[in-house]
């Protein structure tokens, strides 16, 4: 491997390559957002991956799935296989542990991660990932986008950093009982949601930037939580206004004692 390979990212710090290569990173969901993230992680130099997706490439994915070709839709290539090929094509000595299932069906490999990217498409799914990341001490970076409104489509999205000991997605006003309840009420009637490539790219890049900063601290901001809100119509990514008036400075939703395998206390 030539020393030139990472020469353009030397501003990240002297030991950046080593710091990045030692990190085990999890990516849950290898669709439009996750495939972007995988490509960027591999380009930057991440070597250790834990991946989850039980889906295959379909025709309707080809407008946004990074790395997918028309032949993959015909062949119904598993998205996990696509991700592995992307990684190995850039990092031939990478370690990739992939599960072609929901992460909840094989949760143990995820617990070795230091950073987990959640690219899932439900509030409940995000909540469950965050709970696991708090239990097993992992930084959780949530990524999501949505298009709503028929007359005037509005593209929105978010990148959220939720870290053990820090503010959670509830604290930051993203996960609410109302949203979870509305989602539960809509169960089974959601249907395919609008998705396009460029918001996924913006959000994935922002998320990967957060992860690199967590490892290298190159910005010296020491950011322990983040809620970045994407407005696709205005083409902006800004700190969410919900952070301005946070009711809590410490998280009341995840007590420090709630870590490790659950211990069921007989009553």
């Amino acid at each position, binding site marked *: 491997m030539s020393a030139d390979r990472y020469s353009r990212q030397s501003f990240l710090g002297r030991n950046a390559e080593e710091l990045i290569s030692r990190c085990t990173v999890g990516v849950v969901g290898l669709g439009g957002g996750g495939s972007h993230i995988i490509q960027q992680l591999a380009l930057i130099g991440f070597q250790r991956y834990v991946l989850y997706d039980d889906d295959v490439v379909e025709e309707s994915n080809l407008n946004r799935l990074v790395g997918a070709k028309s032949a993959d839709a015909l062949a119904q290539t598993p998205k996990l296989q696509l991700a592995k090929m992307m990684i190995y094509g850039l990092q031939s000595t990478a370690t990739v542990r992939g599960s072609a299932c*929901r992460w*909840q*069906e094989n*949760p143990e490999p995820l617990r070795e991660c230091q950073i987990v990217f959640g690219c899932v498409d439900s509030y*409940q799914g995000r909540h*469950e990932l965050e*709970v*696991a990341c*708090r*239990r097993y001490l992992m930084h959780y970076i949530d990524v999501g986008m949505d298009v709503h409104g028929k007359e005037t489509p509005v593209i929105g999205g978010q990148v959220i950093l939720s870290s053990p000991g820090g503010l959670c997605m509830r604290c930051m006003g993203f996960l609410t*009982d109302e949203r*979870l*309840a*509305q*989602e*539960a*009420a809509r*169960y*089974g009637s959601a249907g395919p949601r609008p998705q396009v490539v460029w918001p996924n790219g913006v959000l994935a890049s922002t998320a990967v930037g957060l992860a690199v900063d967590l490892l290298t601290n190159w910005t010296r901001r020491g950011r322990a939580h983040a809620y970045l809100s994407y407005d696709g119509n205005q083409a902006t990514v800004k700190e969410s206004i919900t952070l301005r008036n946070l009711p809590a400075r410490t998280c*009341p*939703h*995840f*007590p420090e*004692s*709630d870590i490790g*395998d*659950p*211990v*069921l*206390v*007989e*009553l």
Partner: protein
Amino acid sequence: MESPEHQLEELKRYCTKLKAVPEGGVTYLYLEQLRLPAGCTPAVCDGLLCPVARDGYPSRLFLSVQVSSPYTRNWNVSNARIAEKNWVAFSWKVELKDPTLARLLIAHLNGFTKEK
């Protein structure tokens, strides 16, 4: 969540073991080998009672497996992950004023045997 002892003793009559497990600021009650109403298949499975509001329901009973019962139910939770296990639940809203835990459980189990 604090529960008086007699409520817990009452609850124990419906299962072989009763355990508490905290997660995300909520204390869930784990009912090992919960006995289900007549007509249910299986007759017994593990249950997880969430006695506080969640997902738009005032309380919720999760089960370890989907159960067939006299009335077809809308199983709108097929894979909730709580306390590092996967759970299912059907849509059944229980609205009682200050119920004991046992009354709450019975009201949820009635979802198997009441038409609506």
